[in-house]
């Protein structure tokens, strides 16, 4: 049973508009959440993260929101650019057990249309 879910396998957005990628988790022990970005034929790269003590973290065009009560997080990209077209993985870890062990979701493929 997947502990980290990304229910939208793909998303298409017009350049300049907002992209919203969603992620749900089932394990209430998760206390650190991350987003990784992956281009074809490359390994994933770290994008942004958030601790469970916060509900928002912003880095340039990227903002992650966390709703602990709903066990839901989202990644907002504003404005979206064609170079943002990639697969985005949501991930989570239980810091109290091990910050190293990270559980990834299945990914959402984002296409930003020029």
């Amino acid at each position: 049973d997947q502990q980290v879910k990304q229910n939208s396998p793909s998303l298409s957005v017009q350049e300049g508009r907002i992209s919203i990628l969603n992620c749900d988790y089932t394990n209430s022990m998760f206390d650190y959440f991350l987003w990784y970005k992956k281009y074809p034929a490359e390994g994933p790269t770290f994008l942004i993260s958030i601790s469970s003590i916060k509900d928002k973290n912003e880095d340039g065009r990227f903002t992650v929101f966390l709703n602990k009560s709903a066990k839901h997080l989202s990644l907002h990209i504003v404005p979206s650019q064609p170079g943002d077209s990639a697969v985005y993985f949501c991930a989570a870890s239980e810091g109290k057990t091990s910050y190293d062990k990270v559980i990834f979701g299945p990914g959402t493929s984002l296409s930003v249309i020029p």
Partner: protein
Amino acid sequence: DARVTQTPRDKVTEMGQEVTMRCQPILGHNTVFWYRQTMMQGLELLAYFRNRAPLDDSGMPKDRFSAEMPDATLATLKIQPSEPRDSAVYFCASGLAGARSYNEQFFGPGTRLTVL
């Protein structure tokens, strides 16, 4: 330019053959991870090491998969015998273990395995 390297990049083999994938972590990193990417499951954690000691291999099929770190600069993932369902992209990642905080994992480019 420090990066994780993986060899081979592509491997095509026949069912029943042994497959060995290699990973060179970033110098100085003390944790190494093996992941498998499939369409259905996304990125699955197979095993990880800290200071060359295996910490968790619960995601790995024990009967045919094995992971080792012969030294600090080399991690290997072996499948024997390989089966068509093992076809996937296998990623290695390395990082610095954090006792009190998360530290970023740096991924290699992956090995695309096809078992016929």
